């Protein structure tokens, strides 16, 4: 794998943008100004970042309730995303969707999703469309370990495999579905091994190592783009916070376990790796952090001032015509 300085810095920037976005969301939510519920991606940034780095703007992504990171990595602006979390008109869905329902077809985002496993067949369908149109587009579906025992996982992957569709299935295995330990939900906790059942490649990767994710995702995306069919990627990762803001995340996980995973934080790891290998300078990371914080602060300023949609527009867009 060819690791350039530009790549290192680009991956770092995306991960930091997601982290800062999430922490800003946390802060606003805790201040009582954000409606609804938010599920933060803190700790899992390397997965969205490493995979989506391979995608074209017109490639498709489907995501989950924990989907802010995928939306940002795919190109939704922090401002449009944060305004959407606030339920305001400057949001990417004009405030109709909210945190779990971010759509932006201009960058191929076919929805984060409030229903577990629902994005899997949708991504397969988008991939089918791409195949029929011979567009060269690829679809990627992100989902958690909680999705792999739902019917949509089996049906969607089986059909995509059968038809050699250009899609990559990315399981973000953070070890808990809400509070349920993954090992209590299945006899086979190796998600990647399930790929064998569908006759497609399965690969397990350290989801706290963005370069490892980047490398394996590159192979999977390339395989899809060449018309060779789907890959099931399992990224072993961890959410540093609770299931949603409000869940401390420590009633079903030990503090030691949480602390242990935080030591593997992909953002710090990339930075240390880059400094040790002299791929980049401390100053360059600091510059990126400063730039990202400014962008996020500006996004927050807009989102907090943006108005909610007029109530009289509540019936707009039920139908397309």
């Amino acid at each position, binding site marked *: 794998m060819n690791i350039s300085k530009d790549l290192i810095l680009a991956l770092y920037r995306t991960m930091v943008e997601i982290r800062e976005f999430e922490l800003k969301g946390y802060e606003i939510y805790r201040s009582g100004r954000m409606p609804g519920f938010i599920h933060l991606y803190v700790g899992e940034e390397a997965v969205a970042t490493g995979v989506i780095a391979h995608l074209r703007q017109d490639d498709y992504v489907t995501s989950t309730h924990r989907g802010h990171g995928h939306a940002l990595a795919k190109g939704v602006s922090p401002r449009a995303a944060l305004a959407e979390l606030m339920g305001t008109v400057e949001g990417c869905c004009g405030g109709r969707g909210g945190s779990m329902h971010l*759509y932006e077809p201009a960058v191929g985002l076919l929805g984060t999703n409030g229903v577990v496993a629902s994005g899997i*067949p949708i991504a397969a369908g988008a991939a089918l469309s791409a195949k029929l149109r011979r567009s060269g587009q690829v679809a990627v579906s992100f989902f958690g370990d909680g999705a792999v025992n739902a019917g949509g996982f089996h049906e*969607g992957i089986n*059909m995509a495999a059968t038809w050699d569709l250009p899609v990559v299935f990315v399981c973000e295995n953070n070890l808990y579905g809400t509070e349920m330990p993954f090992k209590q939900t299945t006899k086979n906790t190796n998600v990647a091994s399930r790929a064998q059942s569908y006759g497609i490649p399965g690969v397990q990767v350290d989801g706290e190592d963005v370069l490892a994710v980047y490398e394996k995702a590159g192979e999977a995306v390339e395989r899809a783009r060449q018309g060779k069919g789907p890959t099931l990627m399992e990224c072993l990762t961890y959410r540093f916070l609770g299931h949603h803001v409000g869940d401390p995340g420590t009633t079903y996980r030990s503090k030691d376990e949480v602390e242990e995973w935080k030591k593997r934080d992909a953002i710090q790891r990339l930075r240390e790796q880059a400094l040790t290998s002299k791929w980049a300078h401390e100053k360059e990371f600091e510059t990126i952090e400063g730039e990202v914080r400014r962008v996020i602060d500006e996004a927050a300023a807009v989102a907090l001032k943006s108005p909610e949609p007029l109530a009289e527009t509540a019936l707009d*867009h039920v139908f397309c015509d």
Partner: protein
Amino acid sequence: MAETAPVEQATPSQVGANERTISYVEAGVEALREEMRRDPSVFYIGTGIGPRGGNWQQTRGLWAEFGEERLRDTPISELAMMGMGVGAAMASSRPIVDFVFLDFVLETMAQLIQQASTAHYISNGKIKVPLVVRAAMGGIRSAGPHHSHSFYSFFMHIPGLKVVVPALPYDVKGLLKTAIRGANPVMFLEHKGLYSSKGPVPREEYTIPFGKSVVRREGKDVTLVAVSQMVLRAMDAAEVMAQGGISVEVIDPRTVVPLDREAILGSVAKTGRLVIADEAYANCGFSAEIAAMVAEEALEDLDAPVRRICALPAPHAFSPSLDGYLRPSTERIVREVTEMMKH
């Protein structure tokens, strides 16, 4: 306002000199063939719809012309079929997903209701889902409880879905073309018992707008609203009642979402009586919606309580005696309407 076109309808002056008679199922095949030729983004997925031509022959001959790319036989994976239809539609294709039996659409409800029908709205109009869901409903030859239901009323409840329930070959063709060309998810629900029925269909191009009902038979004493196979039973019943001196106006809305409310309200204003004949259940169903609409908007027009003639509230039974008893028959329509006229 409603058109006037009876069931035996379509005199040459109405449909043109090129008219011929074809079956309900053939009308659907024609619509598909024409639309697939016209628009390369249209494709079709379902079980047994390829070389076999469909369980009902509803895709007969299409595979030979369009091949396995656009006529895609699927594994029995209804949830994925629906979800993939949603995804393909979001990605600018125009999929038609055929579930063969409406009963099997129940496997897909989360994708249909939480994804297909909501995406346009919650994306603030950015995402379009031009998806046609095709399935056959209704009782036929004691197909039993898992292959006979008429669950179309479910879908009326969901904002964002259009629901088409054609009774005649002419309507199948014109409405299916409209469904395929539209930009919304559409439930296109045919009746199994009508597939072999025949009627005039013009050779020339036409489409039928949604939300436009047809007065199948004009009358002055009572308004009888029916869709799908019940239109035919309503017409038979009206004929019998005419001999007894009761003049029945039969209205076929053809699409229940959108619903031609004005036509029904206008007819009730004229007749003062409303009956709904429906193969779906009464409880929270199509018939309940029509009755509620008239109660809300035209109660003063009614000379008698509304009467609903629906499938009785039990799962669909197998034995012919039970099956026949549970679903509204022509005789039951005659009996109940005649009784109602005593008010």
